[in-house]
Protein backbone atom coordinates (compact mmCIF):
# COMPACT_ATOMS: atom_id res chain seq x y z
CA UNK A 1 0.00 0.00 0.00
CA UNK A 2 2.63 2.51 1.05
CA UNK A 3 4.90 1.58 -1.79
CA UNK A 4 2.05 2.05 -4.22
CA UNK A 5 1.34 5.52 -2.90
CA UNK A 6 4.98 6.47 -3.07
CA UNK A 7 5.07 5.16 -6.61
CA UNK A 8 2.10 7.38 -7.53
CA UNK A 9 3.70 10.39 -5.94
CA UNK A 10 6.88 10.09 -7.97
CA UNK A 11 4.87 9.63 -11.13
CA UNK A 12 2.87 12.79 -10.46
CA UNK A 13 5.91 14.96 -9.69
CA UNK A 14 6.60 17.61 -12.35
CA UNK A 15 8.86 16.31 -15.11
CA UNK A 16 11.06 19.41 -15.10
CA UNK A 17 12.31 20.23 -11.62
CA UNK A 18 13.28 23.76 -12.75
CA UNK A 19 9.66 24.70 -13.42
CA UNK A 20 8.74 23.91 -9.78
CA UNK A 21 6.90 26.91 -8.37
CA UNK A 22 5.58 27.99 -11.75
CA UNK A 23 3.42 24.90 -11.68
CA UNK A 24 1.98 25.16 -8.21
CA UNK A 25 -1.15 27.29 -7.98
CA UNK A 26 -0.65 27.97 -4.27
CA UNK A 27 2.63 29.75 -5.10
CA UNK A 28 1.91 31.07 -8.55
CA UNK A 29 -1.51 32.53 -7.63
CA UNK A 30 -0.29 34.92 -4.93
CA UNK A 31 2.78 35.69 -7.00
CA UNK A 32 0.65 36.82 -9.92
CA UNK A 33 -1.81 38.82 -7.89
CA UNK A 34 0.69 40.21 -5.40
CA UNK A 35 2.05 43.12 -7.45
CA UNK A 36 -1.45 44.46 -8.20
CA UNK A 37 -2.52 44.22 -4.56
CA UNK A 38 0.73 45.81 -3.41
CA UNK A 39 0.25 48.71 -5.82
CA UNK A 40 -3.32 49.30 -4.68
CA UNK A 41 -2.27 49.23 -1.02
CA UNK A 42 0.49 51.75 -1.74
CA UNK A 43 -1.53 54.25 -3.77
CA UNK A 44 -4.96 53.85 -2.15
CA UNK A 45 -4.33 52.43 1.32
CA UNK A 46 -1.51 54.71 2.41
CA UNK A 47 -3.14 57.97 1.28
CA UNK A 48 -6.31 56.87 3.03
CA UNK A 49 -4.45 56.33 6.30
CA UNK A 50 -2.71 59.66 5.79
CA UNK A 51 -6.11 61.32 5.32
CA UNK A 52 -7.19 59.90 8.69
CA UNK A 53 -3.93 61.09 10.21
CA UNK A 54 -4.09 64.62 8.74
CA UNK A 55 -7.65 65.08 9.90
CA UNK A 56 -6.53 64.85 13.54
CA UNK A 57 -3.48 67.08 13.08
CA UNK A 58 -2.81 70.78 12.54
CA UNK A 59 -0.94 70.36 9.23
CA UNK A 60 -1.09 73.17 6.71
CA UNK A 61 0.46 73.89 3.32
CA UNK A 62 3.39 76.08 4.35
CA UNK A 63 4.20 74.45 7.64
CA UNK A 64 5.98 71.07 7.80
CA UNK A 65 5.44 70.32 11.46
CA UNK A 66 2.46 68.37 12.57
CA UNK A 67 0.90 68.11 15.98
CA UNK A 68 -1.90 65.89 17.15
CA UNK A 69 -4.98 67.96 17.87
CA UNK A 70 -7.58 65.23 18.36
CA UNK A 71 -11.00 65.95 16.98
CA UNK A 72 -10.48 69.71 16.92
CA UNK A 73 -10.76 69.97 13.12
CA UNK A 74 -13.98 68.00 13.05
CA UNK A 75 -15.49 70.07 15.85
CA UNK A 76 -14.35 73.29 14.17
CA UNK A 77 -15.86 72.48 10.77
CA UNK A 78 -19.04 70.98 12.20
CA UNK A 79 -19.96 74.36 13.65
CA UNK A 80 -19.47 76.42 10.49
CA UNK A 81 -22.42 77.32 8.29
CA UNK A 82 -20.21 76.59 5.26
CA UNK A 83 -19.96 72.98 6.23
CA UNK A 84 -23.59 72.56 7.24
CA UNK A 85 -24.68 74.00 3.91
CA UNK A 86 -22.29 71.69 2.09
CA UNK A 87 -23.60 68.57 3.86
CA UNK A 88 -27.19 69.54 3.10
CA UNK A 89 -26.33 70.34 -0.52
CA UNK A 90 -24.48 67.04 -0.92
CA UNK A 91 -27.57 65.10 0.12
CA UNK A 92 -29.93 67.18 -2.02
CA UNK A 93 -27.64 66.90 -5.03
CA UNK A 94 -27.02 63.15 -4.66
CA UNK A 95 -30.52 62.01 -3.74
CA UNK A 96 -32.54 64.18 -6.13
CA UNK A 97 -30.24 63.33 -9.03
CA UNK A 98 -30.31 59.61 -8.21
CA UNK A 99 -34.10 59.47 -8.03
CA UNK A 100 -34.29 61.18 -11.40
CA UNK A 101 -31.63 58.89 -12.86
CA UNK A 102 -33.38 55.70 -11.77
CA UNK A 103 -36.84 56.82 -12.94
CA UNK A 104 -35.63 58.21 -16.27
CA UNK A 105 -33.16 55.34 -16.75
CA UNK A 106 -35.92 52.76 -16.31
CA UNK A 107 -38.17 54.58 -18.78
CA UNK A 108 -35.37 54.82 -21.33
CA UNK A 109 -34.26 51.21 -20.85
CA UNK A 110 -37.85 50.03 -21.39
CA UNK A 111 -37.98 52.04 -24.62
CA UNK A 112 -34.65 50.63 -25.80
CA UNK A 113 -35.69 47.07 -25.08
CA UNK A 114 -37.76 46.99 -28.26
CA UNK A 115 -36.02 46.79 -31.59
CA UNK A 116 -36.14 49.68 -33.98
CA UNK A 117 -34.15 50.98 -36.92
CA UNK A 118 -30.99 52.95 -36.26
CA UNK A 119 -30.55 51.51 -32.78
CA UNK A 120 -26.74 51.54 -33.04
CA UNK A 121 -26.64 55.27 -33.77
CA UNK A 122 -29.18 56.06 -31.08
CA UNK A 123 -27.22 54.04 -28.53
CA UNK A 124 -24.06 55.90 -29.49
CA UNK A 125 -25.75 59.28 -29.05
CA UNK A 126 -27.29 58.22 -25.76
CA UNK A 127 -23.93 57.04 -24.42
CA UNK A 128 -22.03 60.21 -25.35
CA UNK A 129 -22.51 62.02 -22.02
CA UNK A 130 -21.05 59.11 -20.07
CA UNK A 131 -18.09 58.46 -22.34
CA UNK A 132 -17.00 62.00 -23.12
CA UNK A 133 -14.70 63.54 -20.49
CA UNK A 134 -17.15 65.01 -18.02
CA UNK A 135 -15.25 68.25 -17.56
CA UNK A 136 -15.56 68.92 -21.29
CA UNK A 137 -19.23 67.95 -21.51
CA UNK A 138 -19.87 70.30 -18.61
CA UNK A 139 -18.14 73.13 -20.52
CA UNK A 140 -20.70 72.52 -23.25
CA UNK A 141 -23.42 73.09 -20.65
CA UNK A 142 -21.66 76.20 -19.37
CA UNK A 143 -22.19 77.67 -22.84
CA UNK A 144 -25.80 76.45 -22.93
CA UNK A 145 -26.43 78.17 -19.57
CA UNK A 146 -24.47 81.32 -20.48
CA UNK A 147 -26.08 84.37 -18.93
CA UNK A 148 -26.02 86.53 -22.08
CA UNK A 149 -26.32 84.05 -24.92
CA UNK A 150 -28.14 81.07 -23.36
CA UNK A 151 -29.85 79.00 -26.03
CA UNK A 152 -32.42 77.99 -23.41
CA UNK A 153 -33.44 81.59 -22.88
CA UNK A 154 -33.52 82.21 -26.62
CA UNK A 155 -35.85 79.23 -27.07
CA UNK A 156 -38.09 80.29 -24.19
CA UNK A 157 -38.29 83.81 -25.59
CA UNK A 158 -39.02 82.61 -29.11
CA UNK A 159 -41.82 80.41 -27.76
CA UNK A 160 -43.10 83.50 -25.90
CA UNK A 161 -42.68 82.04 -22.42
CA UNK A 162 -40.46 84.90 -21.27
CA UNK A 163 -39.85 88.44 -22.47
CA UNK A 164 -36.44 89.63 -23.72
CA UNK A 165 -35.87 91.49 -20.46
CA UNK A 166 -36.20 88.62 -18.04
CA UNK A 167 -33.78 86.06 -19.34
CA UNK A 168 -32.83 83.63 -16.59
CA UNK A 169 -29.40 83.66 -14.99
CA UNK A 170 -29.31 79.87 -14.88
CA UNK A 171 -26.16 79.61 -12.79
CA UNK A 172 -26.55 82.86 -10.87
CA UNK A 173 -29.73 82.30 -8.87
CA UNK A 174 -29.61 79.80 -5.98
CA UNK A 175 -32.44 77.40 -6.84
CA UNK A 176 -31.86 77.59 -10.57
CA UNK A 177 -28.17 76.91 -10.04
CA UNK A 178 -28.87 73.81 -7.96
CA UNK A 179 -31.40 72.67 -10.55
CA UNK A 180 -28.85 73.20 -13.29
CA UNK A 181 -26.03 71.24 -11.67
CA UNK A 182 -28.46 68.42 -10.87
CA UNK A 183 -29.67 68.39 -14.48
CA UNK A 184 -26.10 68.16 -15.79
CA UNK A 185 -25.25 65.39 -13.34
CA UNK A 186 -28.36 63.43 -14.35
CA UNK A 187 -27.36 63.95 -17.99
CA UNK A 188 -23.97 62.46 -17.22
CA UNK A 189 -25.00 59.41 -15.14
CA UNK A 190 -28.18 58.51 -17.04
CA UNK A 191 -26.37 56.45 -19.75
CA UNK A 192 -24.63 54.27 -17.17
CA UNK A 193 -27.84 53.58 -15.26
CA UNK A 194 -29.69 52.90 -18.51
CA UNK A 195 -27.27 50.30 -19.82
CA UNK A 196 -27.19 48.54 -16.44
CA UNK A 197 -31.00 48.53 -16.22
CA UNK A 198 -31.24 47.40 -19.83
CA UNK A 199 -29.04 44.41 -19.02
CA UNK A 200 -31.43 43.60 -16.16
CA UNK A 201 -34.53 43.96 -18.33
CA UNK A 202 -33.19 41.79 -21.13
CA UNK A 203 -32.41 38.99 -18.71
CA UNK A 204 -36.08 38.53 -17.74
CA UNK A 205 -37.30 35.35 -19.48
CA UNK A 206 -39.93 35.96 -22.16
CA UNK A 207 -42.45 33.46 -20.76
CA UNK A 208 -42.90 35.59 -17.64
CA UNK A 209 -44.07 38.51 -19.78
CA UNK A 210 -46.19 36.20 -21.92
CA UNK A 211 -47.85 34.68 -18.86
CA UNK A 212 -48.70 38.11 -17.49
CA UNK A 213 -50.16 39.13 -20.83
CA UNK A 214 -52.29 35.98 -21.01
CA UNK A 215 -53.57 36.74 -17.54
CA UNK A 216 -54.69 40.11 -18.85
CA UNK A 217 -52.41 42.44 -16.89
CA UNK A 218 -52.49 45.99 -18.27
CA UNK A 219 -49.36 47.97 -19.14
CA UNK A 220 -48.90 49.78 -15.82
CA UNK A 221 -49.86 46.80 -13.70
CA UNK A 222 -47.47 44.65 -15.69
CA UNK A 223 -44.72 47.26 -15.20
CA UNK A 224 -45.11 47.72 -11.46
CA UNK A 225 -46.09 44.19 -10.41
CA UNK A 226 -43.92 42.09 -12.73
CA UNK A 227 -41.07 44.02 -14.35
CA UNK A 228 -39.98 46.37 -11.59
CA UNK A 229 -39.85 43.69 -8.83
CA UNK A 230 -37.81 41.44 -11.13
CA UNK A 231 -35.19 44.10 -11.83
CA UNK A 232 -35.07 45.39 -8.26
CA UNK A 233 -31.59 43.94 -7.54
CA UNK A 234 -30.16 45.48 -10.66
CA UNK A 235 -31.88 48.79 -9.90
CA UNK A 236 -30.14 48.69 -6.56
CA UNK A 237 -26.78 48.11 -8.25
CA UNK A 238 -27.35 51.03 -10.63
CA UNK A 239 -28.56 53.19 -7.77
CA UNK A 240 -25.58 52.41 -5.55
CA UNK A 241 -23.05 53.18 -8.28
CA UNK A 242 -24.91 56.38 -9.02
CA UNK A 243 -24.92 57.37 -5.35
CA UNK A 244 -21.16 56.90 -5.09
CA UNK A 245 -20.59 59.05 -8.15
CA UNK A 246 -23.04 61.70 -6.97
CA UNK A 247 -21.76 61.92 -3.39
CA UNK A 248 -18.17 62.24 -4.43
CA UNK A 249 -18.33 64.17 -7.67
CA UNK A 250 -16.89 67.66 -7.79
CA UNK A 251 -16.34 68.18 -11.51
CA UNK A 252 -19.81 69.34 -12.56
CA UNK A 253 -20.06 71.83 -9.73
CA UNK A 254 -16.43 72.92 -10.01
CA UNK A 255 -16.84 73.78 -13.69
CA UNK A 256 -20.36 75.24 -13.63
CA UNK A 257 -20.69 77.22 -10.42
CA UNK A 258 -17.58 76.73 -8.24
CA UNK A 259 -20.00 76.23 -5.38
CA UNK A 260 -21.74 79.53 -5.91
CA UNK A 261 -23.88 81.59 -5.87
CA UNK A 262 -23.33 82.19 -2.14
CA UNK A 263 -22.30 78.55 -1.53
CA UNK A 264 -25.75 77.31 -2.54
CA UNK A 265 -24.24 74.57 -4.68
CA UNK A 266 -21.19 73.91 -2.49
CA UNK A 267 -20.88 70.18 -1.73
CA UNK A 268 -18.42 68.32 0.49
CA UNK A 269 -16.06 67.43 -2.36
CA UNK A 270 -15.76 71.00 -3.66
CA UNK A 271 -15.53 72.43 -0.15
CA UNK A 272 -12.67 70.01 0.61
CA UNK A 273 -10.90 71.12 -2.56
CA UNK A 274 -11.29 74.83 -1.92
CA UNK A 275 -10.29 74.47 1.74
CA UNK A 276 -7.50 71.92 1.49
CA UNK A 277 -5.89 72.58 -1.88
CA UNK A 278 -6.64 76.20 -2.78
CA UNK A 279 -6.92 77.46 0.79
CA UNK A 280 -3.91 75.48 1.98
CA UNK A 281 -5.56 74.20 5.15
CA UNK A 282 -4.71 70.53 4.63
CA UNK A 283 -5.95 69.32 8.00
CA UNK A 284 -9.39 70.86 7.67
CA UNK A 285 -9.70 69.82 4.02
CA UNK A 286 -8.85 66.23 4.95
CA UNK A 287 -11.42 66.30 7.74
CA UNK A 288 -14.11 67.56 5.35
CA UNK A 289 -13.28 64.91 2.74
CA UNK A 290 -13.47 62.20 5.42
CA UNK A 291 -17.16 62.92 5.88
CA UNK A 292 -17.55 61.23 2.49
CA UNK A 293 -16.29 57.98 3.96
CA UNK A 294 -19.32 56.90 6.05
CA UNK A 295 -21.51 57.39 2.98
CA UNK A 296 -19.17 55.25 0.88
CA UNK A 297 -19.06 52.59 3.56
CA UNK A 298 -22.85 52.42 3.63
CA UNK A 299 -22.91 52.05 -0.14
CA UNK A 300 -20.23 49.33 -0.10
CA UNK A 301 -22.15 47.35 2.52
CA UNK A 302 -25.35 47.66 0.52
CA UNK A 303 -23.44 46.51 -2.50
CA UNK A 304 -22.01 43.41 -0.83
CA UNK A 305 -25.44 42.44 0.40
CA UNK A 306 -26.82 42.60 -3.12
CA UNK A 307 -23.83 40.60 -4.36
CA UNK A 308 -24.42 37.91 -1.72
CA UNK A 309 -28.13 37.69 -2.34
CA UNK A 310 -27.67 37.20 -6.07
CA UNK A 311 -24.84 34.70 -5.46
CA UNK A 312 -22.14 36.15 -7.62
CA UNK A 313 -20.21 33.16 -8.89
Amino acid at each position, binding site marked *: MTTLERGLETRQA*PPRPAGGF*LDRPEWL*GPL*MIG*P*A*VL*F*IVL*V*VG*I*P*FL*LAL*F*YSVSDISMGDRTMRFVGLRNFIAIWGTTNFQTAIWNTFVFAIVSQILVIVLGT*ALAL*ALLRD*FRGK*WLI*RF*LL*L*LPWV*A*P*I*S*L*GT*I*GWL*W*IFDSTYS*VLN*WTLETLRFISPNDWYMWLGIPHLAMGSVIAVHV*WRILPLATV*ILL*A*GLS*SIPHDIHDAARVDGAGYWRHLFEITVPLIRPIML*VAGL*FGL*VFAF*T*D*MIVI*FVLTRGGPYDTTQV*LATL*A*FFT*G*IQGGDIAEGAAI*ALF*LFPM*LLAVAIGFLR*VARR*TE*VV
Partner: protein
Amino acid sequence: MAAADKTLRNRAARGGHYGVIALFTIFSAFPFYWMLITTFKSTPDLLKRGNNPFILNEAPTLEHLRVLFYDTLYGQWLWNTFFVGAIVVAITLVLAVPAGYALARMMGPAGEKLGIAIFLTYLVPPTLLFIPMSRIIGDLGLQDSLWSLVLVYPSFTIPFSTWLLMGFFKAIPKDLEEAAMIDGLSRFGAFVKVVIPISVAGILTTVIFTLTLVMQEFVYAVTFITAARNFTVSVGVPTFLVHGDVYFWGSLMAGCFISSVPVALLYNFFVDRFVTGFTMGAVKG
Protein backbone atom coordinates in the same frame (compact mmCIF):
# COMPACT_ATOMS: atom_id res chain seq x y z
CA MET B 1 -64.89 49.05 -34.21
CA ALA B 2 -62.86 47.20 -31.57
CA ALA B 3 -60.24 46.34 -34.20
CA ALA B 4 -59.91 49.96 -35.31
CA ASP B 5 -59.61 50.96 -31.69
CA LYS B 6 -56.78 48.49 -31.26
CA THR B 7 -54.75 49.66 -34.28
CA LEU B 8 -55.18 53.20 -33.09
CA ARG B 9 -53.87 52.26 -29.69
CA ASN B 10 -50.97 50.36 -31.27
CA ARG B 11 -50.09 53.36 -33.39
CA ALA B 12 -50.26 55.63 -30.35
CA ALA B 13 -48.01 53.24 -28.43
CA ARG B 14 -45.47 53.21 -31.24
CA GLY B 15 -45.58 56.98 -31.54
CA GLY B 16 -45.06 57.25 -27.79
CA HIS B 17 -42.15 54.85 -28.02
CA TYR B 18 -40.39 56.90 -30.70
CA GLY B 19 -41.25 60.09 -28.85
CA VAL B 20 -39.61 58.87 -25.64
CA ILE B 21 -36.47 57.78 -27.49
CA ALA B 22 -36.31 61.05 -29.43
CA LEU B 23 -36.63 63.15 -26.26
CA PHE B 24 -33.87 61.26 -24.48
CA THR B 25 -31.61 61.36 -27.52
CA ILE B 26 -32.01 65.12 -27.82
CA PHE B 27 -31.28 65.55 -24.11
CA SER B 28 -28.12 63.43 -24.36
CA ALA B 29 -26.73 64.58 -27.67
CA PHE B 30 -27.74 68.24 -27.79
CA PRO B 31 -24.66 69.58 -25.96
CA PHE B 32 -22.45 67.84 -28.52
CA TYR B 33 -24.42 69.28 -31.42
CA TRP B 34 -24.06 72.60 -29.69
CA MET B 35 -20.27 72.20 -29.50
CA LEU B 36 -20.08 71.22 -33.16
CA ILE B 37 -22.12 74.13 -34.49
CA THR B 38 -20.37 76.64 -32.25
CA THR B 39 -17.02 75.44 -33.58
CA PHE B 40 -17.86 76.63 -37.10
CA LYS B 41 -19.80 79.80 -36.25
CA SER B 42 -18.19 83.14 -36.88
CA THR B 43 -17.85 85.34 -33.80
CA PRO B 44 -20.36 88.05 -34.92
CA ASP B 45 -22.91 85.30 -35.53
CA LEU B 46 -22.30 83.90 -32.02
CA LEU B 47 -22.69 87.26 -30.35
CA LYS B 48 -25.84 88.57 -32.02
CA ARG B 49 -28.71 87.87 -29.69
CA GLY B 50 -31.37 88.02 -32.39
CA ASN B 51 -29.85 85.23 -34.51
CA ASN B 52 -31.32 81.78 -34.42
CA PRO B 53 -28.64 80.00 -32.39
CA PHE B 54 -29.45 76.52 -33.70
CA ILE B 55 -28.18 77.16 -37.23
CA LEU B 56 -25.32 78.89 -39.01
CA ASN B 57 -26.53 82.40 -39.87
CA GLU B 58 -23.33 83.37 -41.63
CA ALA B 59 -20.70 81.50 -43.60
CA PRO B 60 -18.89 78.85 -41.53
CA THR B 61 -15.38 79.66 -40.35
CA LEU B 62 -12.27 77.67 -39.45
CA GLU B 63 -10.87 80.54 -37.40
CA HIS B 64 -11.75 78.92 -34.04
CA LEU B 65 -9.92 75.74 -34.99
CA ARG B 66 -6.89 77.76 -36.08
CA VAL B 67 -6.84 79.60 -32.76
CA LEU B 68 -7.23 76.35 -30.87
CA PHE B 69 -4.31 74.60 -32.53
CA TYR B 70 -1.95 77.52 -33.12
CA ASP B 71 -2.62 80.00 -30.33
CA THR B 72 -3.30 77.68 -27.41
CA LEU B 73 -1.52 74.69 -25.92
CA TYR B 74 -4.29 72.35 -27.03
CA GLY B 75 -1.97 70.21 -29.17
CA GLN B 76 0.41 69.88 -26.25
CA TRP B 77 -2.48 68.84 -23.97
CA LEU B 78 -3.59 66.18 -26.43
CA TRP B 79 -0.03 64.86 -26.53
CA ASN B 80 0.22 64.92 -22.70
CA THR B 81 -3.02 62.98 -22.41
CA PHE B 82 -1.80 60.43 -24.92
CA PHE B 83 1.57 60.13 -23.18
CA VAL B 84 0.04 59.55 -19.74
CA GLY B 85 -2.58 57.24 -21.25
CA ALA B 86 -0.01 55.02 -22.99
CA ILE B 87 2.13 54.53 -19.89
CA VAL B 88 -0.86 53.98 -17.63
CA VAL B 89 -2.19 51.36 -20.06
CA ALA B 90 1.18 49.56 -19.96
CA ILE B 91 1.34 49.58 -16.16
CA THR B 92 -2.28 48.48 -15.89
CA LEU B 93 -1.85 45.55 -18.24
CA VAL B 94 1.36 44.34 -16.60
CA LEU B 95 -0.28 44.27 -13.17
CA ALA B 96 -3.92 43.52 -13.95
CA VAL B 97 -3.60 40.71 -16.53
CA PRO B 98 -1.77 38.27 -14.20
CA ALA B 99 -3.93 39.38 -11.27
CA GLY B 100 -7.17 38.80 -13.18
CA TYR B 101 -5.97 35.36 -14.28
CA ALA B 102 -4.93 34.37 -10.77
CA LEU B 103 -8.32 35.45 -9.39
CA ALA B 104 -10.15 33.53 -12.08
CA ARG B 105 -8.21 30.28 -11.85
CA MET B 106 -5.95 29.83 -8.87
CA MET B 107 -7.36 31.37 -5.74
CA GLY B 108 -10.53 29.35 -5.25
CA PRO B 109 -13.41 30.90 -3.28
CA ALA B 110 -11.01 33.31 -1.56
CA GLY B 111 -10.29 34.71 -5.03
CA GLU B 112 -13.92 35.73 -5.36
CA LYS B 113 -13.82 37.74 -2.15
CA LEU B 114 -10.48 39.29 -3.02
CA GLY B 115 -11.87 40.16 -6.45
CA ILE B 116 -14.82 42.03 -4.95
CA ALA B 117 -12.50 43.79 -2.50
CA ILE B 118 -10.28 44.94 -5.37
CA PHE B 119 -13.29 46.11 -7.34
CA LEU B 120 -14.58 48.13 -4.39
CA THR B 121 -11.33 50.10 -4.27
CA TYR B 122 -12.36 51.44 -7.70
CA LEU B 123 -15.18 53.21 -5.88
CA VAL B 124 -12.85 55.04 -3.47
CA PRO B 125 -13.12 58.48 -4.99
CA PRO B 126 -10.28 60.88 -5.83
CA THR B 127 -12.07 63.52 -3.77
CA LEU B 128 -11.37 61.47 -0.63
CA LEU B 129 -7.69 60.92 -1.37
CA PHE B 130 -6.52 63.99 -3.24
CA ILE B 131 -5.36 65.94 -0.19
CA PRO B 132 -2.86 63.40 1.20
CA MET B 133 -1.99 62.42 -2.36
CA SER B 134 -0.95 65.98 -3.22
CA ARG B 135 1.35 65.95 -0.19
CA ILE B 136 2.94 62.64 -1.25
CA ILE B 137 3.40 63.90 -4.80
CA GLY B 138 5.06 67.02 -3.40
CA ASP B 139 7.41 64.98 -1.24
CA LEU B 140 8.36 62.82 -4.21
CA GLY B 141 9.21 65.97 -6.17
CA LEU B 142 6.59 65.15 -8.79
CA GLN B 143 4.55 68.32 -8.33
CA ASP B 144 3.63 69.73 -11.73
CA SER B 145 4.95 66.69 -13.55
CA LEU B 146 3.02 64.30 -15.78
CA TRP B 147 4.70 61.45 -13.90
CA SER B 148 2.52 62.25 -10.88
CA LEU B 149 -0.48 61.26 -12.99
CA VAL B 150 1.32 58.16 -14.28
CA LEU B 151 1.84 57.12 -10.67
CA VAL B 152 -1.68 57.80 -9.41
CA TYR B 153 -3.99 56.85 -12.30
CA PRO B 154 -3.36 53.08 -12.04
CA SER B 155 -4.99 53.29 -8.60
CA PHE B 156 -8.37 53.31 -10.32
CA THR B 157 -7.51 51.64 -13.65
CA ILE B 158 -6.05 48.49 -12.05
CA PRO B 159 -9.07 47.63 -9.86
CA PHE B 160 -11.51 48.01 -12.70
CA SER B 161 -9.33 46.22 -15.25
CA THR B 162 -8.56 43.32 -12.90
CA TRP B 163 -12.26 42.80 -12.37
CA LEU B 164 -13.03 42.91 -16.10
CA LEU B 165 -10.17 40.57 -17.00
CA MET B 166 -11.17 38.11 -14.29
CA GLY B 167 -14.51 37.79 -16.08
CA PHE B 168 -12.80 37.21 -19.41
CA PHE B 169 -10.45 34.54 -18.10
CA LYS B 170 -13.28 32.70 -16.39
CA ALA B 171 -15.01 32.36 -19.74
CA ILE B 172 -12.04 30.53 -21.29
CA PRO B 173 -12.42 26.74 -21.16
CA LYS B 174 -9.98 25.15 -18.72
CA ASP B 175 -9.22 22.28 -21.14
CA LEU B 176 -7.07 24.57 -23.27
CA GLU B 177 -4.55 25.20 -20.50
CA GLU B 178 -4.71 21.61 -19.31
CA ALA B 179 -3.89 20.36 -22.80
CA ALA B 180 -0.96 22.78 -22.96
CA MET B 181 0.35 21.62 -19.59
CA ILE B 182 0.16 17.97 -20.65
CA ASP B 183 2.24 19.02 -23.66
CA GLY B 184 4.96 20.07 -21.21
CA LEU B 185 4.30 23.76 -20.55
CA SER B 186 4.35 24.98 -16.97
CA ARG B 187 1.21 26.58 -15.59
CA PHE B 188 2.72 30.01 -16.10
CA GLY B 189 3.93 29.00 -19.57
CA ALA B 190 0.40 27.95 -20.48
CA PHE B 191 -0.88 31.33 -19.28
CA VAL B 192 1.65 33.24 -21.38
CA LYS B 193 1.59 31.09 -24.52
CA VAL B 194 -1.99 29.88 -24.64
CA VAL B 195 -4.29 32.07 -22.52
CA ILE B 196 -2.97 35.52 -23.40
CA PRO B 197 -3.07 35.01 -27.19
CA ILE B 198 -6.72 33.97 -27.12
CA SER B 199 -7.66 36.83 -24.76
CA VAL B 200 -6.77 39.61 -27.19
CA ALA B 201 -10.38 40.83 -27.33
CA GLY B 202 -10.54 41.10 -23.55
CA ILE B 203 -7.20 42.82 -23.32
CA LEU B 204 -8.17 45.30 -26.05
CA THR B 205 -11.36 46.11 -24.14
CA THR B 206 -9.26 46.78 -21.06
CA VAL B 207 -7.00 49.09 -23.06
CA ILE B 208 -9.98 51.13 -24.30
CA PHE B 209 -11.48 51.46 -20.84
CA THR B 210 -8.19 52.42 -19.29
CA LEU B 211 -7.72 55.11 -21.93
CA THR B 212 -11.18 56.56 -21.38
CA LEU B 213 -10.68 56.58 -17.61
CA VAL B 214 -7.42 58.49 -18.11
CA MET B 215 -9.05 60.96 -20.52
CA GLN B 216 -11.90 61.63 -18.11
CA GLU B 217 -9.85 62.11 -14.96
CA PHE B 218 -10.00 65.65 -13.68
CA VAL B 219 -9.60 65.85 -9.91
CA TYR B 220 -6.03 64.60 -9.55
CA ALA B 221 -4.82 66.49 -12.59
CA VAL B 222 -6.28 69.79 -11.39
CA THR B 223 -4.72 69.17 -7.96
CA PHE B 224 -1.20 68.17 -9.00
CA ILE B 225 -0.60 70.22 -12.14
CA THR B 226 -0.38 74.00 -12.17
CA ALA B 227 1.78 74.78 -15.23
CA ALA B 228 -0.36 75.21 -18.33
CA ARG B 229 1.90 73.20 -20.59
CA ASN B 230 1.62 70.09 -18.41
CA PHE B 231 -2.18 69.92 -18.38
CA THR B 232 -4.14 67.06 -19.81
CA VAL B 233 -7.04 67.84 -22.14
CA SER B 234 -9.76 67.39 -19.51
CA VAL B 235 -8.13 70.01 -17.26
CA GLY B 236 -6.50 72.31 -19.80
CA VAL B 237 -9.69 73.16 -21.69
CA PRO B 238 -11.90 74.04 -18.72
CA THR B 239 -9.28 75.81 -16.60
CA PHE B 240 -6.99 77.49 -19.08
CA LEU B 241 -9.30 78.37 -21.95
CA VAL B 242 -11.99 79.58 -19.54
CA HIS B 243 -10.42 82.62 -17.97
CA GLY B 244 -11.28 86.24 -17.50
CA ASP B 245 -14.52 87.66 -18.80
CA VAL B 246 -13.95 86.97 -22.47
CA TYR B 247 -14.74 83.39 -23.31
CA PHE B 248 -13.48 82.07 -26.63
CA TRP B 249 -16.56 79.95 -27.06
CA GLY B 250 -15.73 78.83 -30.59
CA SER B 251 -12.30 77.44 -29.76
CA LEU B 252 -13.52 76.15 -26.43
CA MET B 253 -16.32 74.13 -28.01
CA ALA B 254 -13.98 72.87 -30.73
CA GLY B 255 -11.60 71.64 -28.04
CA CYS B 256 -14.41 69.86 -26.20
CA PHE B 257 -15.84 68.25 -29.30
CA ILE B 258 -12.54 66.98 -30.71
CA SER B 259 -11.52 65.30 -27.49
CA SER B 260 -14.90 63.73 -26.65
CA VAL B 261 -16.52 62.28 -29.71
CA PRO B 262 -13.79 60.08 -31.28
CA VAL B 263 -13.20 58.22 -28.00
CA ALA B 264 -16.92 57.78 -27.58
CA LEU B 265 -17.13 56.20 -31.01
CA LEU B 266 -14.45 53.68 -30.10
CA TYR B 267 -16.04 52.98 -26.75
CA ASN B 268 -19.40 52.21 -28.30
CA PHE B 269 -18.02 48.96 -29.73
CA PHE B 270 -17.09 47.65 -26.31
CA VAL B 271 -19.91 48.87 -24.13
CA ASP B 272 -21.58 45.50 -23.58
CA ARG B 273 -18.51 44.09 -21.89
CA PHE B 274 -18.34 47.18 -19.74
CA VAL B 275 -21.89 46.60 -18.56
CA THR B 276 -21.11 42.99 -17.68
CA GLY B 277 -18.35 44.30 -15.44
CA PHE B 278 -20.62 46.74 -13.67
CA THR B 279 -23.52 44.40 -13.06
CA MET B 280 -21.14 42.03 -11.23
CA GLY B 281 -23.09 38.95 -12.20
CA ALA B 282 -26.26 40.34 -10.61
CA VAL B 283 -27.72 39.65 -14.04
CA LYS B 284 -27.51 36.15 -15.41
CA GLY B 285 -28.27 36.01 -19.08
